[in-house]
């Protein structure tokens, strides 16, 4: 085969010649360095403080898909009510999140389904209604829409209509852009779910957050949870994750970096972009920026956000999916309602443009470090 295609001469371009690499003078839109980002626990020393674990607890360095796998293993061991199923789950899943789980826990509780999202979610609702704790996997968030009727009209309304609940239900799905997913492997439809009362919508930013939030979703929530996993982080984000069982509450946002002059509210992968933009802005503009991870997108922790904005007087909301009728609109409206007199600048939104994620245009459509940096600068200079 090598004789057919001459290898390209520039080794760098060979890794991915279809996506253009930044130039030598690029300062902001550099690839995220997950090995040094302050958002990840690169050592185990800080873990026990953060997660309220005994000092004797141990941890292991793992990426996001391994952490999801570890959380699912913990859940399947802890309760025989937990079930795990979806398309291609048996061999480990296309993103490896269910690796070895069928072997360990048997094909009664961990299994492949036919290719039918509406069937997967409907089946999960039925199992939850009879007391099980189904964890249903949708292969890509882009493919959840056949299940929309089941999620919106059934899961979300189950308790309201009959008093019982389908609260053991967790619907997991990989989401977000990866650079070349185009129209159907890039979407992040959290705003569509966040519009529906009765659903909890969660998006973790890191392996250790994912484990705690997923265990919380399975064991501590009696509401159906839509659990969205930023797929670009599956392999990229590596950090220490506690080995033992722990949960992170689904009603608390987290201030992941304190600051005084402007608050950035985000969730999921864009937090890494925010962190890089903040570092650049603090260096270049001498500003102090606070960064908040919503973690649970709905129902959301409004108090933490309002307290922060009342302190800083400025706010920027960052998310990857389209700006129109997005999470940013809800957060911005809540801020102007709850902190109007403290605002020194309009609440700014940095989000995907109001279009689809065309293959060749992703980098122009979704937020990047430069756009977030620019928003910080504009908000401070307003």
């Amino acid at each position, binding site marked *: 085969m090598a004789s057919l295609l001459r290898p390209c001469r520039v080794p760098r371009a060979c890794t991915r010649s279809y996506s253009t690499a930044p130039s030598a003078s690029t300062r902001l839109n550099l690839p995220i360095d997950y090995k040094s980002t302050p958002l990840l626990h690169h050592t185990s020393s800080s873990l026990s403080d953060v997660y309220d674990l005994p000092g004797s607890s141990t941890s292991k360095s793992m990426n996001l898909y391994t952490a999801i796998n570890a959380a699912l293993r913990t859940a399947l061991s802890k309760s025989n009510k937990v079930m795990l199923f979806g398309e291609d789950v048996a061999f480990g899943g296309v993103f490896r999140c269910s690796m070895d789980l069928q072997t360990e826990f048997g094909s009664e509780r961990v299994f492949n389904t036919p290719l039918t999202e509406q*069937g997967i979610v409907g089946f999960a609702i039925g199992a939850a209604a009879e007391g099980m704790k189904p964890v249903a996997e949708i292969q890509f968030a882009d493919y959840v829409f056949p299940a929309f009727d089941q999620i919106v009209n059934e899961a979300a309304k189950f308790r309201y209509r009959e008093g019982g609940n389908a609260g053991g239900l967790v619907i997991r799905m990989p989401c977000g852009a990866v650079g070349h997913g185009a129209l159907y492997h890039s979407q992040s439809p959290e705003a569509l779910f966040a519009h529906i009362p009765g659903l909890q919508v969660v998006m973790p930013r890191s392996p250790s957050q994912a484990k705690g939030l997923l265990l919380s979703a399975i064991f501590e929530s009696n509401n159906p949870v839509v659990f969205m996993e930023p797929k670009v982080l599956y392999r990229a984000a590596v950090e220490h994750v506690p080995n033992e069982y722990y949960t992170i509450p689904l009603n608390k946002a987290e201030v992941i970096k304190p600051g005084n002059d402007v608050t950035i509210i985000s969730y999921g992968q864009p937090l890494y972009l925010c962190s890089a933009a903040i570092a650049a802005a603090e260096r270049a503009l001498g500003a102090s920026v606070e960064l908040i991870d919503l973690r649970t997108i709905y129902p959301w922790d409004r108090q933490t956000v309002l307290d922060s904005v009342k302190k800083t007087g400025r706010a920027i909301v960052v998310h990857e999916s389209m700006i129109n009728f997005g999470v940013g609109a809800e957060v911005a409206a809540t801020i102007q309602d709850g902190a109007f007199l403290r605002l020194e600048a309009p609440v700014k939104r940095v989000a995907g443009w109001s279009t689809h994620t065309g293959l060749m245009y992703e980098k122009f459509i979704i937020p990047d470090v430069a756009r977030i940096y620019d928003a910080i600068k504009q908000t401070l200079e307003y």
Partner: protein
Amino acid sequence: MSSLRPLPRRIPRIASLRTQPQSRLPSSQPLYASKRWSTSISQRPGSDRVRFPGAVNSKFTTDMSFINPLESGSIPTYRVMDSDGVLVDKTRGRPDVSNEEVLTWYKNMLTVSIMDIVMFEAQRQGRLSFYMVSAGEEGISVGSAAALTPDDVVFAQYRETGVFQQRGFTLKSFMSQLFANRNDTGKGKNMPVHYGCEYPRTHTISSTLATQIPHASGAAYALKLQALQNPDKPPSIVTCYFGEGAASEGDFHAGLNIAATRSCPVVFICRNNGYAISTPTLEQYRGDGIASRGVGYGIDTIRVDGNDIFAVYESMREARRRALSDGGKPVLIEAMSYRVSHHSTSDDSFAYRARVEVEDWKRRDNPIIRLRKWLENEGIWNEDLEREAREGIRKEVLKEFGAAEREKKPPIRSAFEGVYEEITDEMREQMDELKRILETYPEEYDIRPYEDGIKGL
């Protein structure tokens, strides 16, 4: 969707209702609207069969017997030539197709196969983001498309490169789409292999599964109405391709059922290649394959050997004839094959199936080798012609590969174009804001590959 149909404003004139005094009508119960009012189905006294609206010709029986699908045999698989490229039924005539035509099919299959090898390797080298081969299924796509007219409309999934090849999609068009360059009619918006063509009309591939199946039914109904409204127009059909995995989606069932009830001239072709990514057919469905579903929906159905291009071609030709008969009706073809390739460049199938299984299939049967044997048996093909054809195709593929890879990408404004018929005010503002960002931070973006650079926004 709703199970409650609207209450008719007036009491319908049903024969059985007329005999009853109005006062005996239970006022609290809704009256269900039904088309069967006009057909006045009723049970005749003493009849040996049921005439319920839902089953108008079912005999009464005193034998309480459940149907166990395992007890009835499998639907047979239609075959014309065996794996040695020899006519199975010596009493029938040769397939009704010229040697010249068959050679075209063969070269089209070779082209798809060679392009697959080149592009798979190109993806591995990082020169394009994604690719899907159709190895082992070239016979289904080329053979079925050969029985279509250019006016027939195609809705495909993502493993029917041979359909595009057989319908005249050029190597330049393939490569322009794969490299998402400015000559791509999809304007660089879609993932590789999501081809589309204005004429012969072949709608652009969507990654979503089975969504195209109801589209095909609706499109076929449109063609049927248009033919009625304009008798001068030559009658045409819709052909819809999908895999056996997609047939588990609700859209498959919706699409077939609505095609049957509206008598749509559409041929559904299921490529049953044994795997939906990792999921084998045993975990995908029970019962006799996808063909049995067609029977359930009251659709003319056939199962064919997908490695036998003649069987595929003949079935498709007959299916097309049937689709246009009796004022239009749907037909289902289940074409059996084996996915010898990985699902896509993102998949390593040896994580869920044995390498030996794949090698065995590759060696034992393959639509290209089978047709080559036929051609050699006919004395119109040999080793020299094979080498010459392969070298010629490879050279042509690589030439278009190089040209397409060097070509500019479409202008950046394509990111916004096509969402609405016209750019909205909001989008215009967003485009201006993007332009400001690109101009304020020029070192952060490489816009050189895009046609007209910043002016292309």
